[in-house]
């Protein structure tokens, strides 16, 4: 069966990300998550639609201002930032990671728990 209008969009999606501001944003997100830029780029090209890619920069900017105010663990992990502002993870996965990390902070030092939580976020993003 021939799909009339379906086309491989990867090249066009990549063109969107080559703009100066988008490039900076992808760099900032990769730094925040602590993962390679190329891997992140491949993930967001696969997951996001083109409109969301165009809007990546302003969503990231609003996420910096408005996301995760108050809770220290949520702020470190970027709970709202990576689910509602930039939907890299679904809410359920993030909720599990968040509650497990909060439980871990009782037993082991705070930094170590956050590091483990971030490791799990990276795995979830790449999966």
């Amino acid at each position, binding site marked *: 069966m021939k799909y009339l209008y379906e086309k491989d969009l990867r090249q066009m999606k990549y063109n969107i990300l080559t703009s100066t501001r988008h490039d900076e944003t992808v760099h900032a997100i990769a730094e925040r998550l602590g993962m390679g830029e190329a891997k992140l780029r491949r993930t967001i090209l696969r997951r996001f639609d*083109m409109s969301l890619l165009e809007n990546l920069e302003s969503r990231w900017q*609003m996420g910096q201002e408005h996301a995760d105010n108050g809770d220290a663990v949520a702020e470190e992990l970027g709970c709202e930032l990576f689910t509602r502002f930039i939907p890299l993870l679904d809410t359920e996965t993030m909720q599990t990671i968040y509650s497990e990390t909060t439980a871990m902070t009782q037993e082991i030092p705070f930094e170590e728990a956050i590091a483990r939580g971030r490791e799990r976020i990276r795995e979830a993003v790449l999966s």
Partner: protein
Amino acid sequence: MKKTVDVSIPLGPMHPCWKEPVRIKCETAGERVLRAEVELGYMKKGIERIMRGRPWQEVMFLAERVCGICSVIHNMVFIEAMEEISDITVPPRAAYLRVIANELDRMASHILANFSYCYTIEHETLAMYLLNTRETVLDNLERLTGSRINTAYMIPGGVRFDLLPEDATAMLVDLMKVEEEMKRHTRIFETGPLIALRSKGIGYMSREDAIRAHTVGPTARASGVEDCDLRLRHPTYRALGFTQITRTEGDNFARVMVRFQEVFQSIDLIRKCIETLPDGPIRGGGFCKAGETSYAGEAPRGELTYAIKTDDYGRVIDIAIRTPSVMNIEACAHEMIKDASSIADVTSTFISSDPCIACNER
């Protein structure tokens, strides 16, 4: 994106309601839309890539051709960004003339957006009334700038043409006619029971959603976001005593009504400009220098940002344009259309956010 259901209804790229090609894939359960995905790329011309390495004299005309509907504001924001880099001051008369051109363009754009909405909900009578009123507005833009669409009216340090006294009188007469007609059209829209059925409570977007997606312009103002009009920070508009219009309903009806109300506001602003138009030259002088800045202005659809870096000869080394449609279309597709109760509402909701695909993709 991950699929949740199998049924996917594509709309576009050629659609009777849409002026420009865009494709929306709606995943539906029955008539209810679960999620929507936007496929772009039909209008991607790569204008930012063309602009790089060109002198400002060329980029000025390219900036206008980012979008044909709001070309005046693209020109204005680019020129004002260049002025900020090079410390060029504008004569007061030129600053007022810029406001007049910009507000005429805003009126034309808002009336066109409302025309599209009425056309989409099949109220063709009102749509044609609005389109005819728009012609009068464009006549005045032509009277001031010499062109209907791509005007290239502003240059660093001033504007190209002066507003002659007889033209100002004719413009005031035309504005009175436009105001009268728009009052009638607004009444038709506001009180029509069938329009209310198709518009009220449909495509709802809450204030939190609007802030999260960084919506701007009438779309944000209809959802009750305060202080999102950049005209409040523009020195000339501040001198004219500009206030922002905000509505709290957040549905299609509110978005269209905000645009209707802003047309009246624009008429008042132009009148005030013509009354208090200071005498003096319309062009100052200056040289474009090297520098880097990020400058934002209020386009008809919302906040428009130009981030520019120039070199000593006034060439643009790097440029990034963030148009209002980028945010509005994204918010529309992922917040408003989601949970729409029928496929028929998708087109009207999409049009109500005043999408401009040429802006969105550049």
